[in-house]
């Protein structure tokens, strides 16, 4: 036990002094959420605001443009109307961005409208320009509604006559349930990825690194049992994985509390989900999972001759962590006896049910059973693998 602690302490110190590991283990998970929330939130709200308020240059095309239409458009916020008459070059201008849009009024518009027929207005725009279509269509809609009201009044018809049915939609699901359905699967998934990434660099550094630096013989000739060396090192790998997931949680909290760009409901509900009991429960599942990850990463790192080789073997394995996580987020995939046995997927699905308050405890037990079994088997494999001289000294 003393040896294991000695080794773990030294390896932890060593790991914390490695810039590469620090980056992947502490800086990235801690800053990811705050950065995403502030940067993405700001950019999004900024650009949305800009799109809705910037001045639009709009061609008004046609010889029969009614004055009331022109007046209505001019009243619209920040529009510059450019009368185009019969000129047909407006399409090119819209295409080339010198105009934002064109409103073309058909030649017989006035007479048709006056005769209780339908007058045609064509809106030319580029859907790639955010906000243009929405702003102009709104204005035309308001104009149309006004004409309709005038006609109904003229014909002495009540508005209800042409609206026989009114549909009111009321969603009785709580915000917690709605967001929980997605966030419940998504939040653990983020932490699972950080557990893996946080464990990856230390695993490579602690095993392949020893080979690369030529220190493996030194540690093997010290009077410590190999299993103790392995246990000490592996526990550091597991701790760093869990630590980086914890830091991601801290980052998520910080991001939620400091970023004012998120809709308040999201902040509130995510805050409600991230209760201490929930985080503790999640950690009890992440611990065996991270041990399982370590059990995969360590034999690879023992086998690899160089950092590069280790990374090139581990990179494709990332997919096996990312893909099952996505399966867990997909709608319609539920926690069953089968899915409860698949690592990564089972955690995402179980947390979804826990958040929604519909967890089946028998299945939760199966989830823990499966996670622990996978952890035990992979560690046993690591122990066997580390015991083989050809693997350790492969150079």
């Amino acid at each position, binding site marked *: 036990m003393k040896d294991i602690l*000695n080794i773990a302490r030294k390896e932890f110190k060593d790991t914390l002094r490695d810039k590469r590991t620090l980056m992947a283990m502490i800086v990235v998970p801690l800053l990811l959420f705050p950065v995403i929330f502030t940067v993405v939130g700001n950019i999004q709200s900024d650009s949305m605001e800009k799109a809705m308020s910037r001045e639009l240059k709009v061609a008004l095309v046609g010889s029969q443009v009614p004055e009331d239409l022109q007046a209505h458009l001019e009243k619209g916020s920040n529009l510059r109307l450019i009368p185009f008459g019969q000129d047909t070059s407006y399409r090119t201008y819209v295409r080339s961005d010198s105009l934002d849009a064109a409103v073309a009024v058909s030649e017989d518009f006035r007479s048709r409208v006056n005769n209780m027929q339908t007058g045609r207005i064509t809106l030319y725009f580029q859907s790639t320009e955010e906000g243009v279509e929405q702003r102009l269509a709104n204005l035309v809609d308001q104009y149309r509604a006004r004409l309709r009201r005038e006609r109904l009044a003229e014909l002495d018809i009540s508005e209800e006559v042409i609206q026989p049915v009114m549909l009111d939609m009321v969603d009785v699901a709580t915000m917690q349930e709605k967001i929980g359905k997605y966030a419940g699967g998504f939040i653990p998934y983020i932490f699972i990825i950080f557990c893996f990434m946080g464990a990856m660099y230390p695993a490579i550094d602690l095993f392949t690194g020893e080979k690369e630096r030529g220190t493996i013989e030194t540690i093997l000739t010290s009077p410590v049992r190999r299993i103790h060396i392995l246990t000490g090192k592996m526990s550091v790998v597991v701790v760093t994985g869990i630590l980086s997931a914890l830091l991601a949680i801290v980052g998520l909290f910080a991001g939620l509390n400091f970023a004012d760009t998120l809709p308040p409901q999201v902040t509130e509900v995510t805050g409600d989900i991230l209760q201490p009991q929930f985080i503790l429960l999640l950690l009890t599942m992440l611990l065996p999972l991270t041990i399982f990850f370590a059990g995969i990463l360590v034999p690879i790192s023992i086998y690899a001759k160089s950092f590069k080789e280790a990374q090139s073997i581990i990179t494709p394995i990332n997919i096996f962590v990312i893909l099952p996580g996505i399966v867990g987020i997909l709608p319609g995939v539920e926690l069953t006896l089968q899915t409860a046995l698949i690592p990564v997927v089972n955690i995402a699905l179980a947390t979804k049910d826990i958040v929604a308050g519909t967890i089946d405890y028998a299945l939760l037990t199966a989830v823990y059973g499966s996670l622990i079994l996978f952890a035990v088997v992979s560690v046993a494999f690591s122990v066997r693998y580390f015991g083989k001289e050809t693997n350790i000294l492969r150079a």
Partner: protein
Amino acid sequence: MIEIKDLTKQFRLNKQQKKKLGTGAGSVTAVDHINLTCQPGRIFSLLGPNGAGKTTTLRIIATILQPTSGTVRVAGHDVTKEGRAVRSKIGFLTGTTGLYDRLTPDELVTYFGKLNGMDSTTLERRKRDLFHTLEIFSFSSKRIGELSTGMKQKVSIARTMIHDPEVVVFDEPTSGLDVITAEHIIDLIRQCKDDGKTVIFSSHIMSEVDLLCDDLAIIHEGRILYDGAMDDFRAQMVNGSLTKEFIRIVNNAKTQAE
């Protein structure tokens, strides 16, 4: 004391290795029924060309590798059955031994002292003596990654000797080092002898062997071609120079094999 009796080490080959070596055999014999004895207070040199089996033999002594057959006893302990006891009696150093770059010499030597089960009083005293003799104090709290090769080698020596091992194993200790740095190692080997330790070192550099060793074994393709005192070797030489004699013996063995 190191006693090697009828030691054989075979490595199993995988497909890739078979292809590389152009052989259909399932295994390759790195060490083939060798017998050697290294006495305390004497320097034993294992001389041989690359791939002769030197490193394999030394790694078995250091318990990094397990023998396929035969026995090796180090300071009275069997390498197969009492690995930990053997490791606590030995110091192991190679020319390519690396150190943990992100630790300081002080942290590193303390770490290995603790792994060797030393109590902190003995460890501190021993560390102080070694740092003094090797002049490590001036850089003992710098990160090892920032040190020069010579400084690193001194730290390696302190690391090897911290637990005052009875037996010291050097695997090509000066390979890749400049003369000044190599000199530290030569001094260390002499010091070990004066302290009555058992010293075994492997080399393919004849001048080094000539300078240091009391007993000599020449190894080639896993077999011992010569085993005896250095003085006897010099006396029965056919060629004038040690290097030429070494080459003659190895070549002789090759012709016989063909």
